[in-house]
């Protein structure tokens, strides 16, 4: 997995709460059996009109936000289904960090499986970021995962919290399955002694 130590990127503000995984990647694109190439379908029904043409009113399509790699949104981001196609499509589009006041559990978890950081900041700070992103063209943030700080070029500095183990895995790009397989003897032992027999 790709590691994420420090990320500097352009912010795109998507001012909505409860953005669900059906909005992030609509079901018609879940039929593919590949893991890659989902970025083109990200936010499809908001990004494109019925004829498949880009919707100029959708923020991701604004010329000034092209190349953004940090997504800013409101509470309960990623609610809904467990589809990992949601983080796949965000990552494939180019996002490495999503900032919101809260995330749905499964989505939150899925992000770490893909070297992406779902960054939780208090609502007030998220509001401040929205204002700054609107005020400054090409607003950039630096997200330092090793030191758990977010900074901009105008003196803003927020610290954030992250489970130390998740941080360790993200910073080092660790392979979760490989980590579990280090305990293979214990798994075998569990199967011999404790596993349910029905």
């Amino acid at each position, binding site marked *: 997995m790709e590691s994420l130590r420090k990320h500097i990127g352009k912010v795109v503000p998507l*001012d*909505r*709460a*409860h953005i*669900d995984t*059906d*909005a992030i990647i*609509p*079901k*018609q694109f*879940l*039929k*593919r*059996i*590949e*893991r890659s190439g989902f970025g083109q379908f990200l936010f499809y*029904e908001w990004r494109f009109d*019925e004829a498949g043409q880009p919707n100029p009113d959708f923020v991701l399509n604004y010329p000034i936000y092209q190349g953004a790699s940090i997504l800013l949104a*409101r*509470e*309960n981001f990623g*609610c*809904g*289904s*467990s*589809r*990992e*196609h949601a*983080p796949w499509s965000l990552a494939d589009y180019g996002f490495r960090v999503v900032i919101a006041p*809260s995330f*749905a*559990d*499964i989505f939150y*978890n*899925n992000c770490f*499986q*893909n070297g992406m950081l779902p960054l939780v900041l208090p609502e007030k700070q998220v509001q401040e970021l929205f204002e700054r992103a609107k005020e400054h063209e090409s607003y950039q943030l630096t997200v330092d995962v090793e030191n758990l700080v977010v900074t901009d070029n105008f003196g803003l500095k927020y610290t954030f919290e992250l*489970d*130390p*183990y998740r941080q360790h895995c993200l910073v080092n790009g660790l392979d*979760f*399955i490989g*980590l*579990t*397989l280090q*305990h*293979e003897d*214990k*798994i075998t032992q*569990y*199967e011999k002694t*404790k*596993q*349910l*027999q*029905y």
Partner: protein
Amino acid sequence: MSTKRTLFDKIWDSHIVHQESGKPSLLYIDLHLIHEVTSPQAFEGLRLAGRSIRRPDLTVATVDHNIPTTDRSLPIADPISRQQIETLRENCQNHKITLYDLDSRNQGIVHVIGPELGLTLPGKTIVCGDSHTSTHGAFGALAFGIGTSEVEHVMATQCLPQSKPKTMEVHFKGKLPYGVTAKDVVLHLINQIGTAGATGYVIEYTGEAIRQMSMEERMTICNMSIEAGARAGMIAPDETTFSYLLGRKHSPKDKEWETAVAAWKELATDDDAIYDTRVEIDVTEIAPQVTWGTSPGMGADITQLVPNPASFETSTEQKAAELALQYMGLTAGTPMAEIAIDRVFIGSCTNSRIEDLRAAAEVVAGYQVAATVQAMVVPGSQQVKEQAETEGLHQIFLDAGFEWREAGCSMCLGMNPDIIQPGERCASTSNRNFEGRQGRGGRTHLVSPVMAAAAAIEGHFVDIRNWKFNRKEKADGVTS
């Protein structure tokens, strides 16, 4: 261990394979259910890493999400859907995994067939690459949805590293009033605590109302735990659970059954065990529910009006309500009962079991679907379908003008050809009313099976409590 433990704690503790401080627990997984949509990339990942499936015997597959619900003898028209299903077939064959395929009598929505086949048992840890895995918690199992990377993880190791969630007790006190179903109870709960109300928690449902519910009703409740943000929903097993499981295909048999039941009786939360938080709801105050927005928490009683966005507390919620009304094509102040509908969908892992179909059929019997409405029933599994046909329910639906389909997820998510058209309004017994969930531009209202059935007949929502049943002797079927 001397401390008092909850149902959740007991299952968690007994499944820890390895624990290091400051790290997630490594949990053993007793049952891994897989389906066509969230598994192909996991199989591919295994292959690329040169890994194999540790316990194919604890892995069970079916096809449900993307399959057609029309004639099964015809080839699947959409080549990409077909490829996804063929990929699952090949993968199951190569790895010796049991697959309940399209032509199997046991095929169906993964969360319907698990319990039906006795695969879902109390005390088990169960995962599936689908968020509504919470359904299985109705049996006193710890069951939760996972992403595809985790599917691959379980395939390779039969374990998952998990951080321990917090526990929430949701206590439903009182008896369900006439016309109020398990679906209304859970919609009401979500409306009360919000779609993120239980984020980070595993819910245990307790109380008189739960104890009186059948297993199918309990499944409806646990199913929608995820819509309240919960990691899982659980209900302690009792005699209702045991009699449901007795004699099912994979349930323990004979001596093993007795040992199992004895163990299952120990699972209930100890008296005085502490939950991290507690919510109490008086079910006698609940009315039949209809959602008006694009999030399952945006719901109201059938007797209420579409709310004014300005009535919400925070500006974020106000904006969300505004966007929702706009998308739903609704005006604040409209009585819920005046909302006209175009489509009706009775199905999904929330409400497609035999009791749901019986209750809906009672409502429909002797009536005709409104001329403006297109309505369909999609049984949750082939077994449910067979049972319904034995009871003649299909004929009641067909006579009334419903379509009667083969088992699958169907219009719950519209991955297959069953979708609603832009602007169409659907009364649906499923669990999500997100924008575009049932088809681009489609508008979904979540309701119980009896409310959906009545709406199909009248062409708009109606209060089921005032319904005139054509088969009077069975009129109380509405609460079953």
